[in-house]
C-alpha cells in the first residue's frame, strides 16, 4: 500500500500523519480493489484511495450523501452502518453528472423455499421486466461506515462497493424464479391431467379384463340354466305321466281285489304326494325361471356396458359418436349412484353422428351426472330428486342438457366452476378436477362449448354443444390444431 495510492482531500489539512495512514490504522482496507476513504466527524473527507477519490468525484451527490449519513450516525449513536445507495442515470446520455440519487427504501427479502420438481426444463425465454430497464439507468452501491477512535479523534471509515451487476443478477434470478414457479404450477396441472387420462386407460384395461373374466362363467351359467329348464320340464313330464298312470291304475283296481300290500302302497303314494311340495313347485317354477333369466340378462348387459364404456380405443381416438348412445351407456354405468336419489327423465331426439373421442365425452357426461346427484343429495333424505336429460341437434351442432333440481351453485362460486382444483365438496370427496377437465375436453379438444345456469336453492342445468364434424381420419389432426 504505497502512499501514491492515497489522496488527501485537498481542502483538508489534517493532523493525521502520513505514517498513520500507512500502518495498522487502515486495518479494514486490505486490497487495492477496495474503494476506501476516511471521514472526520463532521462528515468531511480526510483521505481516500484513488479509486474512492475517482468515484466520489464522478457525482456531486456522493459527498453530500455521505456527510448526511455520518451525521445521522452520530445523532443516533450508531457505530456502524451498512447502507445501499442508488444512483439513477439518464439512459440516453449516460452522463454521470446527470445521475440523481434515488430515495432508498430498504426491502426485506425472504427467499421462498420451493420443492424441486422432476421435470424437463423448457428453454427459458427471458421476459422483459422492469429491473432490466433500471439496469441501464441505475447504479447500486453498498456503503460500509464505521466509527473509529484514532488518537482521541473520532473518524469514520468508509468502504464502498459497487453492486449494480450483482443486484441486477439478483433481480433476474428473482424473476426467473417466479417464472419457474408459474411453469411448475402449469406442469403440475398438466401432469394431473395426464395421470387422470392414464388412470382412465388403466381402469379401461382393468374393466376389459374383468369383463372377460365374467363372460366365461356367465357363458356356461347362462347356457346351463337353459338346459336345466329343459331337464326340469323333462322330469316334470315324466312325473305327470307317472302320476296319471298311477291314478288310472288305482281307479281300475276293484277295492276288493287289492291286497293289503297294494292298499298300503296306494296309501303311501297318496301320502307322499300330499305331503310333497309338488304343487307349489309347479306353480312357482315359471316365475323362478323367469326371474333368474332376467337376472342373468341384466348381468350380461352391465358387463357389456362396462366393456363398451372402457374400450381402449374409445379413450384416445376420434370416432363416430352418437351422443344418445353415449348418454344411455353412461346412465347405465351411473345407475347405481343415481337410482336411490333421483329419477331420470329422458328427452332425446334423433341426433346425427359426429366425430369425437367417445370415452372422453362419456366421461364429461358422467361427471355432470355425478355432480347432479350430489347436488340432489344436499337437499336431504326425502327430497324427490329429478335429473332431466335432453338432446337436440341442428346442422351445425349436437346439443345436450342435463338438468337437476339439486341444491344449485352459489353465485359467488359460479365463476370458479371450471377452475382446476375448485371444489365445494369436503376434503377427500372430490379433487375438483372434474369440471376443469370437462371444460378442456369440450372446448379445447372438440371445439365445442360447455356452460351452465344455476340458482342456489333451485337447481342447475349444464349445457354442452359439440360441433358436427364429418372429417376423415387424415384431417382429424388438422382439426385438432384449430
Amino acid at each position, binding site marked *: 500500500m504505497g502512499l501514491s495510492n492515497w489522496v488527501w482531500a485537498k481542502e483538508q489539512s489534517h493532523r493525521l500523519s502520513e505514517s498513520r495512514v500507512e500502518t495498522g490504522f487502515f486495518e479494514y482496507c486490505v486490497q487495492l480493489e477496495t474503494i476506501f476513504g476516511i471521514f472526520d466527524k463532521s462528515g468531511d473527507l480526510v483521505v481516500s484511495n484513488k479509486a474512492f477519490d475517482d468515484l466520489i468525484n464522478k457525482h456531486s451527490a456522493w459527498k453530500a450523501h455521505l456527510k448526511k449519513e455520518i451525521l445521522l450516525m452520530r445523532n443516533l449513536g450508531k457505530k456502524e452502518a451498512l447502507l445501499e445507495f442508488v444512483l439513477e442515470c439518464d439512459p440516453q446520455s449516460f452522463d454521470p453528472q446527470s445521475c440523481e440519487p434515488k430515495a432508498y427504501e430498504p426491502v426485506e427479502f425472504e427467499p421462498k423455499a420451493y420443492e424441486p420438481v422432476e421435470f424437463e426444463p423448457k428453454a427459458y425465454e427471458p421476459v422483459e421486466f422492469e429491473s432490466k430497464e433500471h439496469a441501464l439507468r441505475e447504479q447500486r452501491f453498498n456503503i460500509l461506515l464505521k466509527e473509529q477512535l484514532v488518537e482521541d479523534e473520532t473518524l469514520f471509515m468508509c468502504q464502498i462497493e459497487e453492486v449494480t451487476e450483482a443486484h441486477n443478477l439478483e433481480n433476474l434470478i428473482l424473476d426467473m424464479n417466479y417464472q419457474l414457479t408459474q411453469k411448475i404450477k402449469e406442469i403440475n396441472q398438466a401432469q394431473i391431467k395426464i395421470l387422470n387420462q392414464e388412470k382412465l386407460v388403466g381402469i379401461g384395461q382393468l374393466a376389459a379384463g374383468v369383463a*372377460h373374466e365374467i*363372460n366365461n362363467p356367465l*357363458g356356461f351359467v*347362462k347356457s346351463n340354466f337353459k338346459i336345466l329348464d329343459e331337464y326340469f320340464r323333462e322330469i316334470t313330464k315324466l312325473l305327470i305321466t307317472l302320476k296319471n298312470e298311477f291314478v288310472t291304475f288305482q281307479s281300475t283296481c276293484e277295492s276288493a281285489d287289492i291286497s293289503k300290500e297294494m292298499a298300503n302302497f296306494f296309501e303311501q303314494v297318496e301320502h307322499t304326494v300330499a305331503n310333497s311340495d309338488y304343487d307349489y313347485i309347479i306353480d312357482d317354477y315359471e316365475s323362478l325361471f323367469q326371474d333368474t333369466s332376467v337376472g342373468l340378462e341384466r348381468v350380461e348387459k352391465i358387463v357389456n356396458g362396462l366393456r363398451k364404456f372402457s374400450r381402449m380405443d374409445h379413450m384416445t381416438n376420434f370416432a363416430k359418436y352418437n351422443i344418445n348412445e353415449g348418454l344411455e351407456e353412461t346412465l347405465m354405468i351411473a345407475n347405481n349412484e343415481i337410482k336411490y336419489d333421483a329419477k331420470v327423465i329422458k328427452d332425446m331426439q334423433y341426433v346425427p353422428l359426429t366425430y369425437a373421442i367417445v370415452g372422453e365425452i362419456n366421461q364429461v357426461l358422467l361427471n355432470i351426472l355425478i355432480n347432479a346427484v350430489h347436488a340432489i343429495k344436499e337437499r336431504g333424505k326425502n327430497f324427490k330428486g329429478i335429473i332431466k336429460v335432453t338432446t337436440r341437434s341442428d346442422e351445425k351442432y349436437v346439443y345436450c342438457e342435463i338438468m337437476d333440481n339439486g341444491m344449485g351453485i352459489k353465485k359467488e362460486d359460479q365463476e370458479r366452476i371450471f377452475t382446476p382444483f375448485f371444489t365445494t365438496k369436503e376434503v377427500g370427496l372430490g379433487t375438483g378436477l372434474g369440471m376443469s377437465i370437462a371444460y378442456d375436453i369440450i372446448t379445447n379438444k372438440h371445439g365445442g362449448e360447455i356452460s351452465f345456469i344455476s340458482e342456489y336453492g333451485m337447481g342447475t342445468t349444464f349445457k354442452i354443444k359439440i360441433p358436427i364434424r364429418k372429417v376423415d*381420419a387424415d384431417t382429424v389432426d388438422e382439426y385438432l390444431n384449430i
Partner: protein
Amino acid sequence: MRKILFIDDEANILRSLKRLFRNLEYECYYADGINEAIKIYLSLDFIDMLVTDIKMPNFDGIRLLKVFKEASPRTIRVALSGYASVDSITEAVSKNLAKQYFYKPWNNDEIISSIRKMFSLEDEFEQVDLFDKVQNFENVKTLPRLFDRINMLIQKDKSIEEICVIIEEDLAITSNILRLANSAFYQAKTGNLQQAVMYIGLNNLKQIILSYEISQMKEALIKSGESIWKHAARTNNIFYDLYEKYYKKKVPSIVGTAGLIHDIGKIIMLQIFENAYSTEVLQQDISDGQITVLERSLFKIDHAVVGGYFLNWWAFPMELIEVCMYHHRPLDEHIIHKELVAIVTLSTFIEKKEYEILGSSFLGALDILKIDLDYLKPIIEKYENE
C-alpha cells in the same frame, strides 16, 4: 353325420356345450387344449366344423386356428370368445382365420341355428362343386395372387408399411385400387395406399384388391365388367349411409365392403362364361331379380351362389358370404345376419333406382328392418342426382 370339434380350456364351458349339443344331428367332440384337439383330428377322417375359444392362457386360440387352416382348410372355423376386444377379433378377421364369431355368453338357440345355417350353406355350395371341372373355375380360385400374398404377409405380422410397399411395386394396380377405394368409400380422399389403409382399414383394402384382380383376369372382358364396378362402388356408399342411419353407429370394418362385393359373382361369371355371359346377361335390360332366373336357365347357376362360393373359398367372413348369397332374397330362412343382408338389398335397389318396382325382395327387406319407404327417402334423394 357332420362332425364338430369344440375346444376350450375351461371344462365348465365344454360340459355346457356338451349338454347343449347332446341330442342333435351332429357328432360332437370336445377338447380342452391344442394337444387334445390334434389327437381327435388325427383319429377322424374329417372334421366339418371347429368351434374354439380365442384367448386362452395356456395356448393361443389364434394359433390353433392357423394350424387347422393349414391342416384342414375345408373345415369351417368358428370362434367362441369371451374376450370380445377389438384387437383379438381384428386379428382373427384380418388373417381370415374364422368365418363366424360367437361371443360368450351365447344364446343356446342362436348358436345351434347359426351352425345349422352354416352347414346348409355348405350344402348349397355343393351344387357349384359340379362345375369344378370347368377350367376357368380353377383359374378363378387361384387367381388373386396379390390377395394371397397380402394374406400371407398379414399372417406373418408384417407392418402396414411393408405391405403397402409390396403392393406399390405394381403402379397400375395401385392406381386402380386407389381409384376403386376412393369411389367405394366416398369420404376417402386418399392419395396413397397407406392413407387408404389408415382410413378404410387393411381388411377392406384387401377385399378391394381381390375384387380388382378378379376383374382383370381377362383383358377383353374388363370393359364389360366396368358397369358392374360402378354399380358396386355406389352401392357401397349407399350402404354406408343406410347402415349408419339404421344403427346410429359406424360400419364395423368386418363388413366394410359389403356393398362393394355383393355382386362379385357377376364378375366371376363373366370371367368363366366370357362373352356368353356378357351378351346374354349383362347387356340385357332386366331387373336384378330377373337376372338370377336368366342365369340359371342359361348356365344352370346364378351369380349369388357363385359369389358366395368363391368368397367362402377365400375365407371371407360369414356376413359377407351371406350378403353375396342372399341379397336378392333377403327373406330366406337360412340367413343368420338378416338385417345386414336387408340393408345391402335396399342399397342395391336404391343404386339402380329400382325402388319404384316395389318387388317382393325390396318389400321383404323393408319388413325385416321394420322401416318404410319414407325412411329411405332422404338417402334416395341424395343419390338421385349423383
